[in-house]
């Protein structure tokens, strides 16, 4: 197997809210700390090979967007490393984060928020290449036109402002802006989630077409299982800041291993399965401020045993597949007598 393009090595991300001046005084007197820390990501390791599209799937609070932002160099991890071809993507400098590469570009969810409303779209696309001298001043105009055409828009639209475009067209412009930097890796954060169904299909087709043409590598973040299945080669399922299952798209959809993955599939309504054919997962998503001990999914898991309440399962390969899963069922059992639960 060839060297992976992107490696994410056991990264953690903690967001800490420092207490205010008054609370710090009270803390000192009482000897407690009122600052809060959210573990947005815990011990996440993965890699993406050149030409591959990796899907990141999970519900709110699972850390998929945080992971995407760390890969894009918008945040830096609290621990661990993110390397693109062996070099770090970004580094922290005091309060600020300095991004070290132009080779990773991100596409945001909401195309109504991700384009500067007061800048002509041609300028939005041309800005990056001009600043980083990827093209000479004369070439930039032509390049903007080419890029607009490549994403299915007319070159003459370069002189318009974002408010003159529909949501789908804006998302195409955001894609053109990312492509203008000639990235090796694209991070798409829910890039089609806010689009209408018919427009979503257009943008997905564009993405697949560009991927073929430009041999793109991408991290595709989405909550939509059917979209991920359609465009991704491998998929990581995340729950409360950890990867619980990492598998090829085919294997994942044919034979999901983790109880959470199975439950997720069962609770998603799909077209053509008829009325009320879904079985929802019980319980609520726990707060990342106060995650359950042991396996974070155990309070909602139909298969949970005593071991799941205390012991954190590690990602282990599943015999006979390329899948890795973090579940005690795959690693010596949940602490219940064998055969006492039906699989």
């Amino acid at each position, binding site marked *: 197997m060839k060297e992976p393009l992107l490696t994410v090595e056991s990264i953690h991300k903690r967001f800490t809210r420092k207490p205010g001046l008054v609370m710090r005084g009270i803390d000192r007197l009482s000897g407690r700390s009122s600052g809060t820390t959210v573990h947005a990501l815990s011990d996440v390791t993965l890699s993406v090979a050149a030409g591959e599209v990796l899907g990141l799937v999970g519900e709110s609070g699972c850390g998929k967007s945080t992971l995407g932002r760390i890969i894009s160099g918008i945040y830096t991890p609290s621990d661990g490393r993110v390397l693109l071809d062996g070099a770090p993507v970004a580094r922290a400098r005091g309060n600020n984060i300095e991004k070290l590469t*132009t080779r990773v570009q991100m596409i*945001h969810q909401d195309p109504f*928020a991700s384009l500067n409303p*007061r800048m002509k779209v041609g300028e939005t696309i041309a*800005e990056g290449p001009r600043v980083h001298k990827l093209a000479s001043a004369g070439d930039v105009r032509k390049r903007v036109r080419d890029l607009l055409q490549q994403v*299915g*828009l*007319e070159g003459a639209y370069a002189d318009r402002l974002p408010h003159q*475009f529909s949501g789908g067209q804006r998302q*195409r412009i955001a894609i053109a802006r990312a492509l203008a930097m000639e990235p090796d890796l694209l991070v798409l954060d829910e890039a089609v989630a806010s689009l209408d169904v018919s427009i979503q299909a257009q943008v997905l087709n564009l993405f697949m077409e560009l991927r073929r043409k430009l041999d793109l590598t991408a991290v595709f973040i989405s909550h939509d299982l059917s979209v991920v299945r359609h465009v991704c080669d491998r998929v990581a399922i995340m729950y409360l800041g950890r990867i619980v299952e990492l598998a090829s798209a085919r294997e994942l959809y044919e034979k999901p291993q983790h109880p959470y993955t199975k439950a997720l599939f069962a609770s998603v309504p799909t077209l053509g399965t008829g009325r009320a054919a879904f079985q929802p997962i019980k319980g609520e998503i726990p707060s990342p401020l106060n995650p359950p001990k042991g396996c974070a999914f155990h309070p909602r898991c139909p298969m949970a045993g005593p071991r799941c309440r205390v012991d954190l399962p590690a990602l282990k390969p599943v015999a006979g597949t390329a899948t890795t899963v973090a579940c005690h069922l795959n690693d010596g059992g949940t602490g219940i007598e064998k055969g006492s639960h039906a699989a």
Partner: protein
Amino acid sequence: MADTVSAPVEARPARFRNFCADFARSPVAVISLILIFGLLFVSFAAPLVSPQDPYDLAKLDWLDAFLKPGTVGSGGYVHILGTDNAGRDMLSAIFYGLRTSFVIGLSAGVLALVIGICLGLAAAYFGGRIEALIMRIVDLQLSMPAILLALVLVAVLGQGVGQIILALVVAQYAYFARTTHGAATVERGKDYIEAARSTPLPTVRVLFRHLLPNVLPPLIVVATVQVASAIALEATLSFLGVGLPLTEPSLGSLIANGFKYIHTDRYWLSIYPGIFLMVTVVAINLVGDQVRTVLDPRQNR
């Protein structure tokens, strides 16, 4: 796959045209705007439109002192608003005074705007200690009356146009800094800023090409109001006798001069400059109000 080409973008009316149309919905604001332009014209064209040069002491005649409005003086023309104690034509003095007031108000406003924007943007973008430091100073200053601060500064710096402008800038930049900071804090969290940073674009570029244009609308409103208040502040300083001398008339010093005679029947010496001052300040504020109404996102459909 050329069939991904989407429907043509329809040409919508330009933003500026919409803005003008919305602005024109208030006749009061339109009248105010016309008034402001009229006042700006007569003040900056004062040497051309005023019957007399009030600075030129040689042209003043003691015999013309305290002429009532509408009297013909020794110059052979009608003193529409009368003359003052030195025989100065009031209308000319007001035009010249208005010019001084506008120059001071506009330059103080623009300077305070630039300084306030830089501080506010820096505070919002960098956060942390820089933000705390800048914003605490701003808060401190906003808790003091501007007039008090300006008085102290003029007392220290001395009289003169430059000194007054400096005093006004120091007294007013804080309003701009706070408004910029507030608007920029909101905009900073938006995706287009994150997109610009993750390209990555240089910080200065993100600040001035992306953040600044999007925090400008609320600043325009503050700027109009602050220009009006700078004019009023300058008039107050001059009225209190720490502003400009009468040889360099501003509306404030004209009022102050006329005030001495307010208990005699020579009302025109202070009333007319007062009316001009009031009309100027109110008109600017009315325009600012309408701009705020139009720019209010809740107004948009």
